[in-house]
């Protein structure tokens, strides 16, 4: 008996009768399934995008549209020195936090991808920060890094060191918000990497082990290449998310001291919700969208290449 694939079953049950053109009976059913998605996209993606686009061509005063300003809000993006500095700072932030989270999360996943006593409890504890809201972690971070008698400084002083000006010094404040981001999102990398590692075929690794490959050789030549599509995907998701960070800045530093921790997402938030300059905020939002889209395209093409290579090798 020949096996029937899912595609064949769907074609038989829902597809047009043999010999008839496909655009006859199937249309209604197709729209039934696709319609909600289209409505969703129109309402929650396209409409806000278009509305924001319209908003970006206006100047605002006292919360009201003041006048049509053509492309001024977009032109200002390239002449606003604070914004450009802000973008540079955000890029540094994204590179550092995503890199640390990727390395740390993956190493922890390697560590926990083995049978040992209490491993499941440890895994659960490891991912707890992931389930906290970023704003809550931010406030917790502010408490932990409190400079006078805060727990971190107390620990440093107990070990004989000097208290660190975590929030009042521009450099340290930047470090502090990055630490909180890393604290929250390393578990995400850990969780997804661990799931990936557990799905890898064990026979290849075991064969290499039998052939005398060291642990590092197995990691470099087997685990990493096999994990590459997953790691690139994690990188993509974390990069997009890190560009949009707002909560941690709001709860910990409000962008200070000076502008030392002012990140791009916070900048947009403040332009809209504190200065009521919705036009400029919309244009800033479009710039962020553009940056993220470019990144997504680059990273996605890389991921696609990896999958294509895998498929070609499999054939």
């Amino acid at each position, binding site marked *: 008996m020949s096996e029937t694939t899912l595609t064949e079953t769907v074609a038989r049950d829902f597809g047009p009768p043999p010999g008839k053109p496909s655009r006859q009976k199937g249309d209604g059913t197709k729209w039934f399934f696709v319609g909600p998605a289209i409505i969703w996209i129109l309402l929650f993606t396209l409409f806000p995008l278009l509305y924001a686009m319209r908003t970006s061509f206006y*100047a605002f005063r*006292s919360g009201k549209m003041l006048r049509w300003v053509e492309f001024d809000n977009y032109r200002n993006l390239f002449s606003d020195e604070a914004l450009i500095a802000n973008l540079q700072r955000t890029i540094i932030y994204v590179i550092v936090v995503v890199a640390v989270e990727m390395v740390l999360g993956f190493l922890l996943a390697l560590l926990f991808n083995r049978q040992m006593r209490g491993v499941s409890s440890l895994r659960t504890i490891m991912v707890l920060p992931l389930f906290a809201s970023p704003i809550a972690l931010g406030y917790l971070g502010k408490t932990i890094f409190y400079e006078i008698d805060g727990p971190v400084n107390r620990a440093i002083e107990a070990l004989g060191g000097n208290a660190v*000006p975590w929030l009042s*010094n521009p450099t340290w404040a930047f470090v502090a918000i990055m630490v909180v981001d890393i604290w929250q999102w390393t578990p995400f990398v850990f969780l997804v990497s661990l799931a990936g590692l557990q799905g890898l075929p064990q026979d290849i690794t075991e064969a290499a082990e039998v052939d005398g490959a060291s642990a590092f050789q197995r990691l470099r030549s087997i685990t990493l290449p096999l994990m590459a599509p997953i790691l690139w995907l994690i990188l993509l998701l974390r990069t997009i998310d890190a560009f949009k960070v707002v909560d941690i800045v709001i709860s910990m530093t409000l962008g200070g001291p*000076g*502008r030392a921790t002012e990140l791009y997402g916070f900048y947009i938030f403040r332009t809209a919700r*504190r200065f009521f300059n919705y036009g400029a905020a919309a244009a800033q939002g479009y710039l962020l969208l553009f940056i993220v889209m470019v990144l997504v395209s680059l990273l996605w093409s890389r991921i696609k290449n990896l999958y294509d290579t895998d498929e070609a090798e499999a054939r």
Partner: protein
Amino acid sequence: MTQPTVHELYRALIRGQLSRRQFIAKATALGIAAPSIGLFLKAAEVRAQEDPTPVPADVAAPPVATPCDGDGCLFAGQTVTFLMPNETIQIPAFEVRDEFEAATGATLDIVLAAMNDTLPNLLQDMANETGAYDASIIGAWWLGELVEGDYLIPVDDWITDERFPQWSLDSVLPGLKNLMQYDGQTYAIAYDGDGQAFYYRRDLFTDPDISAEFEAEYGYPIPDPPELWDQVVDLAAFFNGRPLGPDGDPISGITMHLAVGQQAMFHFMSFSAPFVVGPDNTQLYWFDPETMEPLITSPGHVDAINKLVELAQYGPEAMMAWGLTESWDYFLGGNAAMSYTWGDLGALAQETPERGGKSQVKGVTKTAQIPGTMRYYNIAAGEYVDTEAPNIVGNTIGGSWAPVISKFAGAPEAAYYLMALMATEPKSMAYAARGFDGVDPGRTFHFPPPNGTGDIAAYVNAGWDEQDALDYTDAYFKLFSNPLQFPYLRIPGTFEYWLALDTHLSEAMTGQSSPEDALSATASDFEEITERFGRDLQLESYKRSFGFE
């Protein structure tokens, strides 16, 4: 059959006659936009909210209004929705709710928003003409934004209308009264009086041994109170690091709240006022009233920021990241010799652990006017002016939180009734004396003789140390009555201008830029904001708000 209005639907919602889903369906059928529906739902969420901070009976404000009956209920069936920051300043609104409802037949809904979300929520409601909020408590700097946006109802006619509880506009001290008015009309109802005063430890300043040591080092006795910022810098340097704190810990000379976004710019304003404002220059501080060009880089401003940076080195480094409460707590814990901030600190100093507070400095906290200078830079004349006596400038810096009524209110008169009730003398006196509700003194009857018609017993009965209360009320009376007042900015974009100052001030304080560069960068930001808002429009608003010809 006539269709219900959205306000009628809202009232049905908060009375439980409509579910949220039914409300959304009916409001949508009326063609109400989704954001507006969202605002109504948000307002309804807090309708049944319990009083978050019950007031102890011994300091409760006395009832003033008489319960109404039948046709005597002026606003029966109406609902007043009152938007307030979720800070202690909301306490009196919850306290008065039952009395108001019994006296008018109206219902009072209090919507609490985070401090930083109150104005955005209010502005969003007004710009969309939704009318979800009838009234709100606002900071004085919002008045320009709201009046220029044509969002508020002036209340002059109602103040003398006998249907409402009576309160006197003339009871408000001059500096604060100006903040309630704009372009000749009154928009705000008396509530809170904010201004920054100077606080210091009476016990340390009057200790003979310490005073002798100070005199030996600086060549003059400890001034009580200090009248010049130069003296304050000397004092801060002298006290900083001395083991005079609890358990003999070293204390700081001064404490301030200098974090970005936490109102540090107000520290600069009150500090810099006597460097720029004086008898020959009473109003030029922010902008040139002919060109709207910023004046923030004047030599007076530069002197001030340099002196402030010098003073800040005698405080804890952590204060660069402190908001109000951290700095207040530091002083209240006995860890600093001096501070300058709002009236809340004086009131909180009375809240000892036995009373549920944290203060270690009750009975030793002295309040004085903000110190001055012996010379200021007269911007109009472009020259320094030396003064014979200390040039001391009053200020109303801060929120001076006061209720206003929305032009889109569904029940504006009922809203005014509520505000007027809270502004009556017996209630206002109780609010100011107990202090913990964030309502600070600012009306003639808040101050004991010879300054006003009040009675210090009201403060003592509310738990104050008598000497602390006498010093405090005297300092605030002088602060608000001083003919020289810091020019308070109230134009559209005020907060954006101030945040630019706040950010660059922080850069100077943390060594990221020189004080001069920080002010230049502030001026540059001011220009960009002015251009974006429209220079001519801003100039008109600026002239209107200050009464420039």
